[in-house]
């Protein structure tokens, strides 16, 4: 450990208004290491990244790069100093092609675009990452994983010394994760230090050399990966021992069948989906990204209705062509994309919660009963432990986990008989995740039939009573929870043509 640190943060503090985001944070990154950073949401990770990338400036403390103190006033300066970042939501320009995306911020290229040279260099960079990608393609058609590859290539073109990956795998399928980890190793072999931030502890054990835990804006520990266990990490993160962060309660006794699908299909999207879902049961839809699981949910909820097959609700065949029909039948859908489909970010918590059940709140003259709305929202705030001063707070100002709870409250208020969750814990931290899991299990215990779509296999295994595996738009099979292991689910989801991810 005599190597000098490539990036050294010394006693960095940063406050926003009265809130201290970082207090005396120190962190030392060595060249050619994969350095994982873990911590709950709100621990200060985002602020830390923003300070390293020049978005924010620290109130006090010092940043050293290769031993030299530096001031990073913008992302541009951070890039010039050799620090770049890629994010969970890739930052690409959909209207520009791959090559141009890679070189957009490259200043070393003169005032004119030498297109042939740009294409050639882009091809070299992409090839170095061990990926095949047409550099003349517009970025708008790329998958999330491909967009990330473009971002990494962009960072490489700037000859970065430190690449920060912020939750890079949150939206990736298992084999895409494997490829991203391979890219991270390739970067490391080139001497680039990779700062890897992820909620998925299993990935950290696959890739990291050292791991730092931060909590409440401070560094709790930095240890070689060999010296830590999942339990010890979680314990450091939450500051207390959690005996069960993903341990399922006993399976619920199931009631009669609530929802059935018979050879459900939507032309050109998915086909042959057949299952029975009982009251009190949790059925998880597992599969790789692109297996069309969300499309099944969209069909059940009437957003993109099924074209053939049958949906049977409480024994009677039904037609669901619009979300309104689905809601009237007692089906609720908690979407994956909170921002786009789930929440009105600029509205107050209470207005969001009441949005799907305004009819119940109508008073005389068809006006909304404000008092009843406030009371109802307040009940949920306490029941679901939504962390906000009161229910007038704008939803956009809450953390991801709390936004998810607001969305849950909205749909719970419709008193659904069937509830569909699409990636309910994506991008939310370990503590909030456990809470959301508990809420889902509690719902099932109350007799709601629950369908959960999740790409997080440990989550699937923790929540499900049965697992329906999908592959490329078809149902690959249904596993009872006793037979479902990570290996079996992945093998089914990937099929024979794919090599099961390690």
């Amino acid at each position, binding site marked *: 450990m005599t190597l000098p640190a490539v990036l050294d943060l010394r006693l960095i503090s940063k406050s926003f208004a009265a809130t201290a985001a970082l207090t005396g944070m120190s962190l030392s990154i060595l060249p050619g290491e994969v350095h994982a950073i873990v911590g709950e949401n709100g621990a200060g990770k985002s602020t830390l990244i923003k300070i390293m990338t020049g978005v924010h400036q620290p109130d006090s403390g010092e940043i050293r790069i290769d031993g030299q103190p530096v001031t990073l006033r*913008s*992302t*541009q300066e951070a*890039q010039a100093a050799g620090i770049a*970042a890629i*994010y969970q939501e890739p*930052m*690409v*320009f*959909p*209207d*520009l092609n791959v090559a*141009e995306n890679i070189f*957009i*911020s490259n200043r070393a*290229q*003169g*005032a*004119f*675009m030498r297109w042939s040279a740009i294409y050639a260099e882009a091809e070299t960079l992409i090839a170095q990452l061990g990926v095949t990608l047409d550099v003349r393609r517009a970025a708008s*058609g790329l998958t999330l994983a491909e967009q990330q590859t473009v971002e990494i290539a*962009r960072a490489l073109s700037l000859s970065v010394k430190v690449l920060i990956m912020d939750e890079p795998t949150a939206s990736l399928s298992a084999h895409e994760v494997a490829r991203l980890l391979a890219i991270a190793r390739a970067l490391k072999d080139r001497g680039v230090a990779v700062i890897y931030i992820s909620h998925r502890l299993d990935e950290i054990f696959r890739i990291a050399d050292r791991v730092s835990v931060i909590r409440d804006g401070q560094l709790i520990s930095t240890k070689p990966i060999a010296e830590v266990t999942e339990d010890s990490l979680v314990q450091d993160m939450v500051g207390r021992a959690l005996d069960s962060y993903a341990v399922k309660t006993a399976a619920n006794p199931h009631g009669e069948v609530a929802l059935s699908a018979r050879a459900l299909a939507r032309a*050109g999207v998915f086909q042959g989906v057949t299952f029975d879902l009982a009251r009190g049961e949790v059925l998880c839809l597992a599969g790789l990204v692109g297996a069309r699981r969300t499309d099944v949910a969209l069909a059940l909820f009437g957003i993109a209705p099924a074209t053939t097959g049958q949906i049977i609700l409480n024994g009677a065949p039904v037609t669901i062509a619009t979300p309104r029909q689905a809601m009237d039948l007692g089906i609720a859908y908690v979407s994956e994309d909170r921002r786009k489909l789930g929440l009105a970010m600029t509205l107050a918590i209470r207005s969001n919660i009441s949005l799907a059940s305004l009819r119940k709140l109508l008073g005389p003259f068809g006006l909304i009963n404000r008092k009843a709305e406030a009371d109802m929202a307040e009940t949920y705030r306490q029941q679901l432990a939504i962390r906000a001063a009161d229910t007038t707070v704008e939803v956009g100002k809450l953390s991801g986990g709390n936004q998810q709870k607001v969305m849950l409250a909205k749909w719970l208020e419709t008193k659904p008989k069937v509830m569909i969750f699409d990636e309910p814990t994506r991008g939310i931290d370990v503590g909030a995740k456990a809470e959301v899991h508990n809420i889902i299990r509690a719902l099932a215990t109350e007799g709601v039939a629950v369908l959960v779509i999740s790409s997080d296999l440990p989550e699937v295994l923790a929540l499900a009573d049965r697992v329906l595996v999908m592959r490329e738009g078809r149902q690959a099979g249904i596993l009872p929870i006793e037979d479902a292991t990570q290996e079996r689910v992945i093998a089914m989801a990937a099929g024979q043509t794919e090599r099961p991810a390690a």
Partner: protein
Amino acid sequence: MTGIFHRVSPQSLRLIALALALLATILFFSTQIDGYLSPRMFNRVTTSVAVVLPLAVGQAIVIMTRNIDLSVGSILGVVAYLTGQLLAVLPDLHPVLVVTLAMSIGALAGAINGALVAWGRVPAIIVTLGTLALFRSFLVEYSDAKTITTASLPAWLVDLPQANAVTVAGFDLRVTVVLALAACIIVGLSLAHLRWARRFYAVGSNPDAAIMAGINPHRVVFVAFVLSGALAGLSGFLFLAKFGNITVVAGMGFELKSIAAAVVGGVSIMGGTGSMLGVLMGALLVDTIDNSLTRWDLVSEFWREALLGFLIMAAVTMDTVATRSLAKLRAKGGQA
């Protein structure tokens, strides 16, 4: 059939569609209006397009960055009036200096728009709606409702609209047309080959990603408005040359024409895309229809405005529909 959709980009498809629409328009009116396919009509249309084209080019740059400039018509009017007044006092100014001055006045007005949008964080539609009225009111107040007349202008400017650059097979290309084309081509080449100009696309395509890529989006938006103002200034000069008589209503309603040309020419109102070849063809189509309608006896010329409005809506609707069905076609092709 689907093979074509895979090889030809949506942008090229649109250019082909525009060319066909232009051809169809010309063919249609040639059966309706006597002597339509004549050098005279060609001149009438091209010199009219010359005034609109710089406006449309500037508008296109602004729209590319996800903004809009409603004040270009008023800027045109102010520049035409001020330039005319200046020439009445100093008739010996060098033509190059006159054009530069006109563009500078326009750029100054654009800078006001740009600063308010980029750093004031006021939505462009509000800022430029405000300046549309403000610049126009300034003109009314400043001119005291007096008119600039051809008589007060130097001879070279009065003769400029009739000056030919080249003549091909009896069809003349006027100097003013060449000026406007040059502006369009210079901007077009810059957008394709200048690293800095690629940022207009980047900022419009994904503003957040632009910030992360170390681009200052405020500066880019500001420059877009300054360019739009400067090009409106050029249009103002060309307007002065073409008409000679400048009243306080000069250039009124030209914002609609410029937006129509840009949008019909394939500049996406969502930002991030657009080519100057498309804008040129959009301007040609819009102005050909406009000029033809005034000569067409069957329809009152008061329908021209309505037709512009219709064209804008049709272009955007077609875009949405085409993009959607193209995506569907590709999805199907991808599965096969």
